[in-house]
């Protein structure tokens, strides 16, 4: 039946596009596609690009893809934008910044709506990346939804995570908060021609320096283990550390992007040399299995809990006749009855 997936493997663009739509549309079809294509995946370098809305992620992705194309690297791009929580609709506008890439057969751009998924990615993102991987794209750039402080799913989906900051986004206390900055393998201060850029870069470098000093004090083993929870250590193993660097770019005209492209390629080499590639594959696999389990559970919730029971409990809680824990327990009991 899967002539379509055979065509994906030969890199046929229309088949790639169609397969990604099918993944978005149906979890059951996503399963078939991933089962079928999985043996053909694993070669692509998955690079996440995240950062606040307006920090210049799409523009940076555009320029980064150009730099990779200069090296004859085939680049697949998945650009995620948010869905409306009210209508489910979305405006996917990342292609606007990627017009330079039009007409290049070594580039494939796919816009994707988050469809209510939290964490900055869509449920279908990881599986769509597998389609691009199987179709022969060497590097897959995943641009997240404009992210705030806690949208860190990308770090468990990508091998390399680029966090994009822009000047003027906050004082130096922002830079030592937990969250998005911790997941960066590469930090970019974009719009570096704007006032305040030097201060942002300085604050980020200071933050990195503090991190390194602290990390050296605790045992390296612990840090690697804590990577399971998503916190990445700067030290992979004694003596072969990846130094997170801060790069300044003006993505709109390409300034500084060459250095970012070099860092992306260097990071892949580092992961492979240090054995960290395997560790990240473990993290990635764990995340993916978890996501699939959660999706199935969510489906069970949706399909096995009576809607009218749910609505009457909602009203009961709102009118303070029942507390929310008791209400949830009653609904939960419809899927997993207490013995």
């Amino acid at each position, binding site marked *: 039946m899967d*002539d*379509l997936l055979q065509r994906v493997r030969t890199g046929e*663009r*229309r088949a*790639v*596009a*169609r397969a*990604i*739509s*099918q993944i*978005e*549309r*149906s*979890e*059951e079809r996503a399963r078939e596609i991933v089962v079928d294509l999985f043996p053909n995946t694993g070669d692509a370098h998955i690079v996440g690009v995240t950062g606040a809305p307006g920090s210049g992620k799409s523009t940076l992705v555009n320029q980064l893809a150009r730099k990779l194309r200069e090296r004859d690297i085939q680049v697949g791009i998945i650009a995620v934008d948010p*869905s*409306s929580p009210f*209508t*489910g*609709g*979305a*405006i*996917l*506008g990342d*292609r*606007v910044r990627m*017009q330079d890439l*039009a*007409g290049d057969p070594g580039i*494939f*751009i*796919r*816009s994707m*709506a988050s*469809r209510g998924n939290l964490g900055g990615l869509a449920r279908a993102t990881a599986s769509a990346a597998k389609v691009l991987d199987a179709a022969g794209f060497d590097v897959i750039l995943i641009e997240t939804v404009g992210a705030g402080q806690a949208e860190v799913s990308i770090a468990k989906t990508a091998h390399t995570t680029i966090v994009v900051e822009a000047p003027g986004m906050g004082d130096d206390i922002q830079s030592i908060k937990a969250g998005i900055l911790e997941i960066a393998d590469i930090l970019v201060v974009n719009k570096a021609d704007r006032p305040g850029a030097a201060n942002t870069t300085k604050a980020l470098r200071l933050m990195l320096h503090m991190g390194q000093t602290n990390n050296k004090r605790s045992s390296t083993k612990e840090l690697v283990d804590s990577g399971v929870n998503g916190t990445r250590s700067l030290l992979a193993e004694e003596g072969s550390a990846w130094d997170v660097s801060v790069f300044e770019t003006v993505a709109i005209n390409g300034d500084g992007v060459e250095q970012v492209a070099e860092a992306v390629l260097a990071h892949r080499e580092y992961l492979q040399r240090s054995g960290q590639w395997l560790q990240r594959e473990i993290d990635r696999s764990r995340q993916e299995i978890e996501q699939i389990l959660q*999706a199935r559970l969510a*489906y069970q919730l949706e399909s096995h809990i009576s809607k009218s029971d749910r609505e009457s409990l909602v009203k009961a809680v709102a009118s303070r006749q029942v507390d929310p824990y008791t209400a949830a327990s009653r609904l939960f009991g419809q899927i997993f009855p207490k013995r």
Partner: protein
Amino acid sequence: MEDRKIRVLIAKPGLDGHDRGAKVIARGLRDAGMEVIYTGLRQTPEMVVEAALQEDVDAIGLSILSGAHKALVPRIMALLGEQGLSDIPVFLGGIVPHDDLPEMKEVGVTAIFGPGTGMDKIVQAIRDATAHQETSSGG
């Protein structure tokens, strides 16, 4: 677990720089629950068709106010045909003189929406034109 969303490409081919209308349409379709891929200004016919292919859209909306529709639209329709994408319904909005409407229909445009067309009408037309895809989306 079906999650069928209508995906629409909204493109502005040609050289005019007035994208307010296209943005209003994009916003209206978003509010109707559709996923709108907005490509911005100054798209060549090749870019429009490439985006439609990569994004696997269910419908295409073109906004043209430059008067170049007689050159751009037939070219886009021809390229869609070359790529095997003739089944995607194409809608045209903007400024299209009444006399040109038959020609636009002839090259395959599904419907033309002039200034003042209600959003409801546009949403319904896209839903109608894409309804058959619900059952024939197997591959």
